[in-house]
């Protein structure tokens, strides 16, 4: 198992108490697997992604453990995580392409980044050049300033940088959301290529756009209100989901070929619960069309078929 996460709980400290942003995530990712992390705002996916690499106030580590390649990942201890960051776990943050220092040439920025990780720039330069070729970036990009590059080029540069030291786990946070449609395809496919070339072992792709995940992810973990709702292979999640939330979510997405006048889609009424004082029992209960008495107890996240996990009392499916 490349990555194992068990009962991870990370809360946000606020004046009014703790916000249960991530409340018990348990899952594992195999070597070479690209897992999509999907869900709406407030579901905990960004918290989960960042907790695996950089857990600082106001986030606080509450419970659970994480193992990467069999080694315990000390995510609760920011200082001890220094040894792992960038080398074993790496991240492409959400606004990375806008976060490059505008007064530094790209090459200088890279060498500064590497020096801070105690890696000599000249040692890694040949590999860096090889990667730039792979992502179809000209080598003279190292001598340019960020403002001279287009959005797609910046995003690819950030991707190369984040994976330069061949991390075991790459966390990609909304890497395609600010890009045009054509660049989205190129960048997403590049993520897959990185995995294929073994620059990274496994990947977590965080996004709200499930159709991108359909294109590149092997499996998808759907989260709701801080808890995992369903995890399965991509085709299963899209075509035959078991959790009512997943089912309603997929069916609410407009697709090309579906017109309002012929087939009116519907959303999910209501709002996700506030996580400051989360309700007992299943968190989707108030919006679930299939809720019944037992839902006042929280359903466990169990494996109902091989590789298919669901947190629902009607785990055999509600539309069976």
């Amino acid at each position, binding site marked *: 198992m490349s990555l194992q996460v068990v009962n991870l709980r990370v809360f946000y*400290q*606020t*004046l*009014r108490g703790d*916000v249960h942003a991530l409340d018990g995530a348990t899952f594992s990712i195999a070597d070479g697997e690209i897992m999509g992390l999907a869900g*709406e*705002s*407030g579901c905990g996916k960004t918290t989960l992604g960042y907790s695996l690499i950089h857990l600082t*106030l*106001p986030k606080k580590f509450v419970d659970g453990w994480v193992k990467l390649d069999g080694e315990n990942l000390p995510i609760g201890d920011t200082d001890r995580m220094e040894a792992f960051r960038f080398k074993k776990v790496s991240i492409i943050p*959400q606004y990375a392409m806008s976060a490059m220092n505008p007064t530094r040439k790209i090459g200088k920025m890279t060498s500064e980044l590497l020096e801070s990780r105690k890696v000599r720039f000249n040692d890694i330069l040949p590999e860096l050049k090889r990667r730039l070729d792979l992502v179809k970036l000209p080598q003279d990009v190292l001598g340019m300033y960020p403002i001279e590059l287009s959005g797609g080029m910046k995003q690819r540069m950030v991707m190369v940088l984040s994976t330069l030291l061949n991390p075991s786990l790459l966390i990609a946070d*909304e890497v395609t*959301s*600010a890009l045009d449609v054509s660049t989205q395809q190129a960048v997403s496919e590049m993520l897959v290529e990185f995995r294929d070339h073994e620059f990274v072992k496994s990947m977590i792709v965080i996004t*709200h756009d499930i159709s991108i995940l359909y294109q590149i992810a092997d499996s998808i973990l759907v989260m709701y209100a801080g808890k995992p709702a369903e995890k399965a292979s991509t085709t299963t999640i899209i075509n035959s989901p078991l959790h009512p939330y997943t089912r309603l979510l997929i069916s609410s997405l407009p697709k090309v070929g579906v017109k309002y006048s012929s087939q009116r889609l519907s959303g999910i009424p209501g*709002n*996700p619960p*506030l*996580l*400051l004082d989360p309700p007992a029992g299943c968190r989707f209960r108030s919006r679930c069309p299939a809720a019944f008495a037992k839902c006042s107890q929280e359903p466990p996240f169990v494996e109902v078929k091989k590789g298919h996990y669901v947190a629902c009392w009607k785990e055999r499916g509600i539309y069976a």
Partner: protein
Amino acid sequence: MIKAAASLPTSVKKKNEFLYFAFKNTKLRVGLGILLFFLVLMFVGPQLTEYEPTDFVGPSGVPPSTDYWFGTTSFGEDVFTQFVYGLPATFMVGIIGGGLATILGMTIGFIAGYRGGVVDEVLNILTNVILTIPALALLLVLSAYVKVRGIFIESLFIGFTTWPWAARAIRAQTFTLRTRDFVDLAKLSGRSSLKIVFTEIAPNMASYLFMTFILMFGGAILTAATLDFLGLGPTQGTSLGLMMNMAVLWSALPLGMWWWFVPPGIGITAIVGGLYIMNVGLDEVFNPKLREM
């Protein structure tokens, strides 16, 4: 990109949040405390002394004692009396001078920031001209024509020469705010530009405007003290700066009469310093990102 859904309980009021942080903030408490101390001294002080500032009360050049708390000047005047009678002048110049500078700065800053274009260019030129005119030289010329000056004239002068700083800062803030969607929405609701500036933009900058006023207030006091010290201040009355002026004129320093100029010096430093500390504290109160949990 996708903002988080509401995560606060229903009846949270922003005003309560401000007051809560305001009372917790040490810098604000310290700064406000200093200011209040001097304000109280200003009102209570005259009751504590039976003299007038220019009364001849006793032996000249006497160091602080139980009779004369701050000692006496070369003319036998009570330094403590002068001190407490000088405080009102200080505060008045702060309020009038600082207030005038803030109002002028707001007017020019809002117009330049909101309208942009040619209007902005013209107002910028005006601002820069005033900034580069040496205020001291101007004052010297003025003092040659206006022989008798009071606190009021001094305040006006300070107000008319120190507003550029405020105008620049307010203009910059207005620039960022006018591109926001809610200003567009106000335009779509048929609001006139003037109304938009006062009902949409200014309230959003309320904390900023308040802090600008405080800085202008402190700056005016400091400027007045400097002018008084140089003899370019009011020709009548007394103020802390004038005390220091007199002290230097009558050789207090070489004669070792520290009690004549040290109290007013500390007074000015403490008041202006307190105001600046308050400002830093207020910044933390109004800007949630600067707060520590």
